[in-house]
């Protein structure tokens, strides 16, 4: 399939919706993406035809469902080029995947005084799990700063790394600034000190090709719903050696090999980390979404969205008193901005009435807001189905709203 925007838009029924009598312009893709019909149909098809609890079932339907779930795991493996499908753990999303590592890695590898490094531009989901560990085990959380353009100050990383550093956990792409971080470089540096790296791929996997082996990431996590899949399913990739070394996250069914009251032994990878009935409906629908974007091509999607970002910066640049938050040379997927002293909530409320869906606020990254001395931004974030015409509507909407708030 080539990149045919009209065909792609046809695949997403919700895009035909009108909001307050205006065509929907959906620019909140960093929060969640819309779903193509094939994903929605996959969910209902599973429930209608292939539903049975997976693994250990001897009956026909259970085997069909098990095969579909494991085939989905293989689809994910291929999509991010992991070495083995046993390195793919299904989670509820990025947040749960980070919590899993923080808990399992933290409990087994960290003691009081050990250090974890994150960056100043992390989503709360890559801050709070480490703070919980801080409270529990007395680890120290260190932070890589960024400059006024929203670019990480990597020279500071050398000072932050010590003999006590146990892990670096960092976003591939900032959900607020759009900055693409040089994770390959960070991983190389970390590995030269024998420090593993977790990459938060929530905002990268939907927008660019990702190869976990090429990056040499130790852990890489992302969410299904941000890449046109269903909510409630996500992925933790972990190198086999790490997943073997760290203990289970939750206990229950599926993750055990043998249970007695004296001692329980755990199942092999990846099942050791999948306690309880896995979301086999979600996993197969996620695989459907990954197949959908793969057919279009991640390179093509990246090029399309890069052009949308470029065009947005150019067109919004025409707005009087516009201020872009985040001006990194390498960026992806989204544009954060403010207009004069208009509160982002006010601006978002007005353009909502014009059918334009953007997000306003701190985007779950309050430290980023604090660094810029602002309360929030307006964020337009893109997906495969967005067009330049929609950006023109956004710009016209912002112009109109701005006029309403200008002091007379």
């Amino acid at each position, binding site marked *: 399939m080539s990149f045919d925007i009209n065909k792609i838009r046809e695949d997403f029924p919700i895009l035909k919706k009108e909001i*307050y009598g205006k065509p929907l312009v959906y620019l909140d893709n960093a929060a969640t993406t819309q779903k193509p019909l094939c994903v929605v149909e996959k969910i209902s098809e599973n429930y209608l035809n292939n539903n049975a609890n997976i693994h250990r079932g001897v009956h026909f339907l259970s085997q069909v469902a098990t095969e579909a779930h494991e085939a989905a795991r293989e689809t994910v493996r291929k999509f991010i080029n992991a070495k083995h499908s046993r390195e793919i753990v299904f989670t509820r999303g990025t947040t749960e995947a980070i919590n899993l590592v923080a808990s399992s890695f933290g409990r087994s590898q960290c003691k009081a005084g050990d250090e974890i490094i994150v960056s100043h531009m992390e989503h709360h989901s890559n801050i709070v799990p480490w703070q919980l560990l801080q409270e529990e085990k007395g680890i120290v959380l260190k932070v890589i700063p960024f400059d006024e353009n929203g670019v990480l100050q990597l020279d500071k990383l050398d000072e932050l790394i010590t003999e006590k550093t146990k892990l670096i956990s960092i976003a591939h792409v900032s959900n607020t600034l759009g900055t693409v971080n040089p994770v390959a470089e960070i991983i190389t540096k970390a590995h030269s000190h024998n420090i593993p790296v977790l990459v938060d791929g929530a905002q990268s996997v939907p927008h660019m090709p990702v190869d976990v082996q090429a990056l040499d990431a130790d852990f890489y996590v992302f969410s299904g719903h941000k890449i046109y899949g269903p909510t409630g399913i996500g992925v933790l990739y972990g190198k086999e050696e790490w997943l073997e070394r760290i203990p289970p996250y939750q206990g229950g069914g599926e993750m055990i090999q043998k249970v007695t009251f004296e001692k329980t032994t755990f199942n092999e990878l990846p099942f050791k980390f999948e306690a309880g009935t896995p979301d086999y409906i979600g996993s197969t629908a996620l695989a459907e979404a990954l197949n959908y974007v793969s057919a279009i091509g991640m390179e093509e999607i990246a090029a399309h969205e890069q052009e949308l970002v470029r065009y947005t910066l150019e067109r919004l640049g025409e707005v009087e008193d516009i201020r872009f938050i985040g001006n990194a040379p390498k960026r992806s997927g989204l544009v954060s901005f403010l207009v004069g002293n*208009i*509160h*982002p*909530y*006010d601006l978002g*409320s*007005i353009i*909502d*009435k014009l059918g334009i869906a953007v997000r*306003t*606020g701190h985007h779950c990254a309050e430290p980023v807001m604090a660094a810029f001395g602002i*309360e*929030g931004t307006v964020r337009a974030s893109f997906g495969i189905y967005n067009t330049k015409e929609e950006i023109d509507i956004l710009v016209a909407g912002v112009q*109109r709203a701005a006029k*309403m*708030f200008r*002091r*007379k």
Partner: protein
Amino acid sequence: MTIAEKQDEIIAEFEFLDDWLDKYQQIIDKGMSNPGVDEEYKIDKYLIEGCQSKVWVHAEFKDGLVFFQGESNTDISGGIVSMLVEVLSGHTPDEILETDLYFIDQIGLKEHLSPTRSNGMLAMVNQMKMYALAFKSQQA
């Protein structure tokens, strides 16, 4: 003017505005011409925290009447609080407590506000009535 008369006046101002954008403009303009809250009262004690906006409401009791000041860090919430101040300020605690704020529905405010703003408005009204109640019990 009674509270009802003030409400009717606001309803009349909005009556000929069909387009919701014009209604919003009217709300924003009201906020902009509102004198706001004295700096000394723009502190957490007088803050009604909403989801994304902050509103400060302060009240004084003089000669049996309640006088409100209100301000927000966002212009739309600022307009809403200034209308509430306009309507409720300068009345007795009993008048404030007994009043039905029908102008909110009649100018179409509720249907056009996001649920978070709508909840914020409710919180403002509640806070203002709480002030009235406190002054009333002080009086007794």
